[in-house]
């Protein structure tokens, strides 16, 4: 047959040219949601990366002569009760929070997607066992679990990473599992398997690229969830430990001064909101762009 394929000429009238699909870059640039999200996120990242340059003071340096001062030329956003510059704390706090937010999501994403895909494809005992574990984790209220784990493992960033690693993967697992279960029934998977491709290859090169996009989009909001959790933990004193700056503890500290010096709590709050919106837009935009039509 190989010879016959090589030797044959076009058997039927070739069809005219096929419509071109705009490239990823072009689609990305034209999607308003994505661009808005990308611009906002880039701004935030740029700002926090440039913290040493644009933050004019050390985030932990106290200036007890100028405590609780409002926005001024010296301190753009004022100072807190220990005279620490709010603007610098905001920037450095952003560094910490964003870093923790992204890193805490990496393991759950990778592990969750992997285990979800395998379970969805193979089914059987493995699937039952893993899904029961997922059910157990989901049965606990999220924050109760996080707090308990952080208590157990120890406060600070490593505690947060471990707590999220143990609990956050379940959402990814569920999501990719259902996507895989659906894909399994489709003809193009049947064709890939029928073509003699190994199961591992079908899973990795065929099914996964189709199911992972949903997880990628979700991971954007997950980063926000982590940041909020860190903020909440910080509020409870279980988050990033002082004197390292982070938005959570800034809000906690600022809470005592809401009547008089609101900017202390509002600024980090706005920072969280802004970050949340930008990641959300980025996620939505990605969902649009990554769709194959």
């Amino acid at each position: 047959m190989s010879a016959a394929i090589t030797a044959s000429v076009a058997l039927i009238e070739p069809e005219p040219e096929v419509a071109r699909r705009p490239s990823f870059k072009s689609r990305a640039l034209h999607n308003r949601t994505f661009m808005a999200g990308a611009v906002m996120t880039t701004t935030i990242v740029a700002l926090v990366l440039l913290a040493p340059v644009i933050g004019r003071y050390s985030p932990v340096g106290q200036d007890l002569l100028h405590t609780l001062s409002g926005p001024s030329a010296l301190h753009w956003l004022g100072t807190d009760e220990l005279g620490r510059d709010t603007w610098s704390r905001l920037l450095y706090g952003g560094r910490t929070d964003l870093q923790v937010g992204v890193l805490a999501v990496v393991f759950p994403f990778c592990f969750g997607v992997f285990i979800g895909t395998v379970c969805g494809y193979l089914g059987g005992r493995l699937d039952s066992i893993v899904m029961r574990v997922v059910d157990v984790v989901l049965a606990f209220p999220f924050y109760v679990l996080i707090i308990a784990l952080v208590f157990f493992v120890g406060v600070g960033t490593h505690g947060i990473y471990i707590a999220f690693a143990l609990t956050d993967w379940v959402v990814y697992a569920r999501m990719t599992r259902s996507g895989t279960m659906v894909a399994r029934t489709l003809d193009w998977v049947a064709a890939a398997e029928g073509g003699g491709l190994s199961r591992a290859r079908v899973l990795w090169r065929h099914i996964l690229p189709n199911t992972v996009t949903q997880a990628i989009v979700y991971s954007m909001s997950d980063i926000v969830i982590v940041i909020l959790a860190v903020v909440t933990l910080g509020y409870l004193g279980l988050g990033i430990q002082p004197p390292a700056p982070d938005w959570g503890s800034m809000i906690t500290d600022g809470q005592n001064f809401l009547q008089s010096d609101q900017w202390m709590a509002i600024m980090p709050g706005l920072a969280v909101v802004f970050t949340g919106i930008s990641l959300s837009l980025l996620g939505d935009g990605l969902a649009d762009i990554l769709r194959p039509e």
Partner: protein
Amino acid sequence: MADALIEVENLCVSFAAEHGRLLRAVDDVTFQVAEGEVVGLVGESGCGKTTIAKCIAGRVAPSAGTVRFEGRQLGLKRATKDRRAIQMVFQDPYSSLNPRMTIRQVLSELLRVHRLVARADLEERCVQLMALVGLPSDALDGLPSQFSGGQRQRIAIARALAVEPRVIIADEPVSALDVSVQTTILRLFEDLRSRLGLTVLFISHNLAVVRHLSDRVAVMYLGRIVEEGDRESVFRDPRHPYTRALLASAPRLHQIELVRPTVKGEPPSPIDIPTGCSFHPRCPRATEVCTSDTPRLERVRTSAVHFAACHFRDETSPEAVQGP
């Protein structure tokens, strides 16, 4: 007669249904497909034709009976070369291609994994496969979403051919296409068959298409073959009332009078197959014996190549020998 390439013997496929009952999708089916032949498998929805296809292609395990290829029994797990030898083309052009892989990726992956051509010749072979199905080489860069239904079917056929199969099982490959596009795809099948010596099991509910393309025909109803034989014998002188009903109901361009339905009601659920001849509740010819005695697929007296599962198989059809 050429050697049987595919032999299906007493094949049964049943699935567990609710309340512990059994859904018999395929019930004791036996037939062969010879090398180079096109066998048309005809029947309406639920008759089991797709399940048989999946069994032969190794996607569904038989509950009983065997499927043989070149004399070797094949099951769900089979050698790679056997898996390559039998390829399927599916009905729905919109779900038969991976939406995220370009055509080039799909084809070259198959060629590479099975080491069918040297690395350096990969691109050339992809272009040849495209030409074989009448698509330009720049189609290789495209994603399925950029193609029409007919083009996608051509791509699906190219994919099936990429692994150099011996048998193609086409499961309603043109049912979802417009009539002119259907014709192009049917021509493609005909040409491929003569050029590449392909053997084809063509599954369809469209009698006109089956009559045009097949050498032999098997008609299925509720999991059983009710009539089988040489194409012209079956079409000119159908010996099973169900085949006659199918023929009578086939849409015809210049059919001015309304076709009177000769068959009552609808097919029962495959969980609840009637006793005796499974067609008897709907059959215009049914008598007492049909309710208790299941007719076997047996040769009709007047032909060596025509079989029917009906107690009245030797009665000629009232509209027999219709010509143009």
